[in-house]
């Protein structure tokens, strides 16, 4: 590549990397009229949040140089290589999230193609569902008096025929099903026994939560709970009360006598494990607890998830539901063509449009200025690999924390399937105008769900359809994640189980036949590629070339983006804080230049 002339050798900000946070900062600082140079040793945008074609994915996995990172093509994919988009960051973005609020504020939502998430699904065997756990006992110690009073009745009471309607016609369905039939959109209900988690439903019965084998739709609204055939008497009441507890513990104003007590109950139990807390205050069977926990997408099992974390996630989920008019059942969205990789693309481009410079395939090393040049003051002297004869200086150097500071490990797998798993992508409500483009499937800990999988922490699968533009019609892509190293081998089995349960064309035991491509990697492997590869080296050089005092003032490090399924909530705030540190104010963070403020706001 010919060396192009850099417009300047002095930069207000040099940003090393093109991941999500660094791209956002590049955009914000450029828009604030700072001179910004953003670079990345990789030939593509996105760093560890990048999007890759099929062959790029294979290369990337190979470059990780890890014995446990694997890529395998099992059969021929439908599309050409470049028509696939695999991403290292297939994040979900909740409607009520700091990121979306920020994008709305700066009128950037139209730069992206938003797709809705469908229902959450959870794997629970019949055996697991029959287990009552502590829900049958009257365990109410520690509950506040006006939240739970009186004896807790055991779940499982079958409704008797009402004494006043003794002659109920034999032909009509029993009361429960009959009433629920009325809820379905005028279609005839199938004969469904009004007992525990009902028989597998067909698509015509819209009233109950759906089920495919052991994969069950997770109830997340009061309506789901009220009219689910799968919950019994007291369980229904307790789940309803738990939902209200979450909503009230979050509200700033007391809405009724109960809300203060919800907030204080939460405060008193902030670190109590979720299971313990629920058993003490809203006794529910372990299967139901696992089901609710799946909405949190947290990597720990419910028996060790601290209450305050679970409540925070559940609150986001519940308050996001119903916000999208076209698909009220969707709580979250995701981005087409590679999830958060798109954020990197749009923001880096935004930085360039606002006057910044992006250079790919360019590494940077702190290097002392030649003796002849003027003193750098407290600027940081750097050498670019693309412009070795033009040393530059940066007023601020922004990069990601080195891998040695990385704390959480997670284990990921990506699968391309030759089936599109249609039952999971059907609309939940008759009033939904669009179908979902992605769904979440949870395999809870084996002891709660009795799946036979043997995992002790939840395994999450995000399944993305061809509506994302990331694969061909008739295919889908599954992103699997677990926090436990020893359970990474279970990811493939989990995918096979789901395919066998859901896909009408796959027989039991033949799930693996639908896997076209499989690949696995650990989050830790990513430190060996791209911008992270040289991170320790750069830090070492920095410490030699620049004094600690200058480093304190001029070098800014952002934390690596969390590798959760949910988009890292702290992102915008962290970047805003860095912006404030450099620019001197929080105002104007990414504010669009006047000539680009256009046509109104339309989400989706």
């Amino acid at each position, binding site marked *: 590549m010919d060396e192009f002339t850099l417009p300047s050798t002095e930069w207000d900000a040099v940003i090393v990397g093109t991941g999500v946070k660094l791209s956002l900062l590049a955009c914000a600082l450029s828009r604030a009229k700072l001179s910004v140079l953003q670079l990345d040793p990789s030939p593509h945008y996105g760093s560890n949040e990048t999007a890759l074609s099929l062959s790029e994915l294979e290369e990337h996995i190979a470059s990780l140089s890890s014995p446990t990172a694997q890529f395998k093509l099992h059969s021929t994919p439908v599309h050409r290589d470049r028509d696939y988009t695999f991403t290292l960051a297939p994040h979900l973005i909740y409607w009520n999230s700091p990121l979306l609020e920020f994008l709305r504020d700066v009128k950037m939502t139209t730069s992206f193609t938003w797709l809705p998430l469908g229902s959450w699904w959870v794997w629970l065997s019949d055996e697991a569902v029959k287990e009552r756990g502590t829900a049958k006992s009257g365990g109410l110690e520690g509950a506040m008096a*006006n939240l*739970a*009073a*009186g*004896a*807790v*009745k055991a779940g499982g009471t079958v*409704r008797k025929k*009402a*004494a*006043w*309607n003794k*002659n*109920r*016609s034999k032909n*009509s369905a029993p*009361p*429960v099903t*009959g*009433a*629920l039939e*009325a*809820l*379905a*959109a*005028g279609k005839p209900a199938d004969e469904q026994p009004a007992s525990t988690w009902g028989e597998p439903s067909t698509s015509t019965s*819209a*009233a109950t939560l759906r089920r495919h084998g052991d994969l069950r739709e997770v109830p997340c*609204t*009061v*309506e789901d*709970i*009220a*009219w689910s055939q799968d919950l019994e*008497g*007291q369980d*229904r*009441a307790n*789940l*309803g009360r738990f939902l*209200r507890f979450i909503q009230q513990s979050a509200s700033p104003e007391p809405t*009724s*006598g*109960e809300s203060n007590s919800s907030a204080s109950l939460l405060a008193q139990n902030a670190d109590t494990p979720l299971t313990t807390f629920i058993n003490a205050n809203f006794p529910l069977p372990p299967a139901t607890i696992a089901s609710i926990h799946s909405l949190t997408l947290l990597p720990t099992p419910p028996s060790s998830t601290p209450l305050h974390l679970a409540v925070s996630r559940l609150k986001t989920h519940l308050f996001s*539901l*119903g916000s999208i*008019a*076209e698909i*009220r*059942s969707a709580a979250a969205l995701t981005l087409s063509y590679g999830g958060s990789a798109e954020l990197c693309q749009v923001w880096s481009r935004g930085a360039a449009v606002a006057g910044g410079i992006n250079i790919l395939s360019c590494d940077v090393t702190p290097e002392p200025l030649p003796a002849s040049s003027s003193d750098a003051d407290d600027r940081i002297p750097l050498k670019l690999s693309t412009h070795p004869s033009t040393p530059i200086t940066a007023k601020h150097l922004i990069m990601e924390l080195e891998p040695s500071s990385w704390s959480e490990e997670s284990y990921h797998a990506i699968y391309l399937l030759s089936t599109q798993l249609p039952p999971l992508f059907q609309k939940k*409500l*008759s*009033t939904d*105008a669009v179908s979902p483009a992605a769904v979440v499937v949870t395999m809870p800990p084996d002891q709660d769900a009795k799946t036979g999988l043997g995992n002790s922490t939840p395994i999450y699968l995000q399944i993305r359809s061809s509506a994302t533009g990331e694969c061909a019609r008739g295919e889908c892509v599954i992103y699997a994640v677990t926090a436990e190293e020893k359970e990474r081998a279970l990811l493939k089995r989990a995918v096979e189980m789901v395919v066998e349960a859901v896909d009408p064309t796959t027989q039991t035991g033949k799930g693996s036949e639908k896997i076209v491509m499989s690949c696995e990697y650990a989050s830790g492997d990513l430190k060996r590629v791209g911008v992270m590869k040289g991170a320790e080296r750069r830090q070492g050089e920095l410490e030699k070339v620049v004094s600690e005092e200058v480093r304190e003032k001029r070098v800014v490090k952002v934390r690596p983006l969390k590798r959760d399924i949910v988009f890292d909530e702290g992102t915008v705030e962290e970047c805003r804080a860095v912006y404030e540190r450099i620019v001197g104010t929080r105002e104007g963070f990414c504010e669009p230049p006047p000539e680009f403020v256009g046509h109104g706001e339309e989400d989706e």
Partner: protein
Amino acid sequence: MASHGVTRSSYAAQSKDVAARERELKKLTEYHELTAEFQRKRTEKEYTKEALDVTAKVLKINPEFYTVWNYRREILLHTTLLPFSPSPDGVDETAAYGGYEASTAGLLKQELAFLFPLLSSYPKCYWIWNHRLWALHQATRLLSPPFAEKFWRAELDLVGLMLSRDMRNFHGWMYRRFVVANIEQPEKSLVEEEFAYTSGMVRGVGGMTNYSAWHQRSVLIPRLLEERGSGEQERMDFLEDELELLKRAMSTDPDDQSLWFYHRWLVYANALPGDRTAIAPDMPVVTRILLLVDQIEWLKELLESHSSCKYILKALVSYVGLYRTLKQEPIPDEDREDLDEVDENQEQALLKEWLDTLVRLDPMRRGRYMALRKSVLIQE
């Protein structure tokens, strides 16, 4: 007084900026010129395309100016929206009518299209909705029934869209009833579809608390059962199902007031003889009493888990009072056997306890509960 969160003073503050003031003045002048022109043309009863254009310009700025809507309608009725008249020289009337329908429908579609962006900006302006209904009625007046029905059906879709954006907007529901009534005009009935629509609504996110949807349901049920030709037993089964539905909803969220209102209607309409809206109007008194007892017993159970929910207490007090009233009705001796013995003293004590709790929980309405106490308790 704040209006939609924008106070008068913030309006004033907006105008303070000099450049903004200048822009405002310019807008005002333009508007005055437009309305002056409108007045002129109307006084002269000018019914032309130019006049129509003037009305469009005024209405885009101020759709609340209803006189201009009136004028617009006058213009259309005098110029383009004329009834079909077969030509005198024996030209094929069917073909001629077909041509007439197509062009008239096109005009009406244009009119509806003109309204649509106005609706998006001013969804609560009565005059826009009024004009919309007028345009649709023109379709019924001038076009053949199947053609006209297409317009109304498209309108139903529009209402569905608006209700999905704001499902508790009573304007939306009222408008929906208008539209449905117009589709049903000749001999059709949409009652099953509409009932299914309410079912979908209350099933959907945030729908369980949608008072408008439950209300609509209560309005549809009597017609639904009549059209189904449901016999007495079928009606009782339907009632049982509906009560079961409510029971599940209320036990999930006993604080939802919409559900209590609906429950109250279900119970009162069917317990009291002679209610026109009753689902099962021919039930004997003893059955009504058993129904009431069934609901009271269930509510007592619910109270055990939610001892400070005032809705449960209020319902119990009302229903027990209703029960006492019903027992005064004439009941055949052989039916009396089905009724359980009731300890009047215990019942009285319970009523007192519930009312005392209500006063404690809701001291602001103390007077109401004291009045209730008088009417419900057997005077000692």
